């Protein structure tokens, strides 16, 4: 739809909704530069950021989050892409069941993923004597949750793709593997990237599943922020939040630039 003059009340509602979404975050950022432990403004400072630099626990948590995020993103991107290709390209018994299975994680509340895996790992520990390291548990859980999102995003891209290109490549003498890497993957790439980005953000942001699976164990960044928020102590949490906000915004902006303007070439 396009170009009609909008009534002012509609613009006012929209502005109010954006204010509602963004003002709390802007206030949070502003006060990360406030030279006071309380919310009265005492002047500009960087000292909360300096204090951040001295917190070893913060860097450990950031490191754990990055490791978990990267490992689970790579795994779910590979598994999810293969699954998407299998579903889009092959006819086999149980295909409809598989397709529905892919959508189950999307509609399952995170807390159920967390507690059901808690039960599974509990059974591993109590009855099989296998106690997995906490970080491995988190990675397994994140991959289980993220495969579906990658599959759905990549599949949407696959649907719009022209199969003839691969067939043409093979007729011109490329074997199946060459055709896959030189023709299919480059065309799929924006889909894989957006799927991977979605997976990484969900993994990096996850508090629910991680907190259920690890309890006090290996702490990720969201768990650290949660614990600080629940205790609501020092303004360093405003500084951490600002760093996270700026980091994610840059990541989203960069990926927008990377994946935009790459329509399917036919």
């Amino acid at each position: 739809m396009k170009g009609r003059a909008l009534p002012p009340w509609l613009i006012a509602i929209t502005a109010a909704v954006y204010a509602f979404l963004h003002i709390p975050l802007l206030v949070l950022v502003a006060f990360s530069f406030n030279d006071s432990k309380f919310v009265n403004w005492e002047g500009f400072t960087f000292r909360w950021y300096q204090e951040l630099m001295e917190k070893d626990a913060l860097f450990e948590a950031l490191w754990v989050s990055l490791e978990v995020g990267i490992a689970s993103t790579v795994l779910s991107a590979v598994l999810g892409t293969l699954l998407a290709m299998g579903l889009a390209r092959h006819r086999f018994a149980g295909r409809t069941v598989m397709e529905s299975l892919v959508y189950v994680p999307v509609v399952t509340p995170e807390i159920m993923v967390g507690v059901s895996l808690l039960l599974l790992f509990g059974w591993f520990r109590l009855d099989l004597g296998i106690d997995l390291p906490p970080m491995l548990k988190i990675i397994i859980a994140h991959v289980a949750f993220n495969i579906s999102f990658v599959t759905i995003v990549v599949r949407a891209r696959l649907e719009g793709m022209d199969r003839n290109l691969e067939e043409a490549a093979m007729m011109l003498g490329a074997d199946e593997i060459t055709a896959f890497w030189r023709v299919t993957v480059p065309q799929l790439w924006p889909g894989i990237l957006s799927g991977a980005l979605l997976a990484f953000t969900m993994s990096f942001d996850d508090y629910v599943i991680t907190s259920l699976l690890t309890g006090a164990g290996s702490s990720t960044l969201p768990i650290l922020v949660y614990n600080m928020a629940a205790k609501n102590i020092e303004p360093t949490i405003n500084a951490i939040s600002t760093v996270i906000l700026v980091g994610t915004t840059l990541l989203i902006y960069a990926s927008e630039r990377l994946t935009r303007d790459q329509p399917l070439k036919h």
Partner: protein
Amino acid sequence: MLPGTVWLLAFFLIPLLFMFAASFLKPVTYGGVDAGFTFSHYLRFFEPNNLAILWRTVVYSLACTALCLLAGYPVAYVISVAGKWKNFLVFLTVLPFWTSFIVRTFAIMFLMRDTGVINTVLQALGLISEPLPLMPSVLAVMVGLVSGFLPFMVLPIYTSLEKLDPSLLEAAEVLGARPFARFTQVVLPLSMPGVVAGSLLVFIPSLGSFVTTDLLGGGKTVFIGNLVQNQFMKVGNWPFGSAASFVMMSMVLVAVLYYLRRRDQAQAMGA
């Protein structure tokens, strides 16, 4: 595709089946399950305090969905006609979705708690002498849920408005329909797929939330998610926690079935 399937089965579906089985077993103190079939965990949901939790979860989640719809529809409409501003507005809408949920919740706490920005400013202006009890409260929980899930409502509605053929509106106008009638009889019905999808995407995570209710509502807004978390992490009654999870899942299922029926109806009408 095999490894992905195996992973989904082993670490998603089988644990859910496990939990379903556990919901009929006997609890062991401090976590774990014991043999013996029982329905008792499900029957506990007929106790008044547990019924109250179920009721609260459903009503608040419906209220959150309705508020997201009321706030999100106008925004989606404005984006769909925004011309050169479109990309920027979409970016503003998805930004909170990509932003850490915990950080956003903390931002609301920072504004609304007793020593928060709102109370401090009002006290400094001399408008109030005691801090307003803004948080923990139902209001704070609603603010948290709505601001958390609003993008899920805006984007599907925007997508279906984008597909709307402007010539239909012109036709309605030529035929004498006033703006209000054009909206209720052309725009709204054609955007229903987006409205239904958006409502589902808001309602489901709202049903399952427990962090927002915990941080912003304190003990005042116990959702079924808080019950589940409590049973697994504090009380240690895993079978009851499992039963509570499946009560939650059954509510999700009702919402999904409703969505699928509406979608099929819409497709039948379109065809």
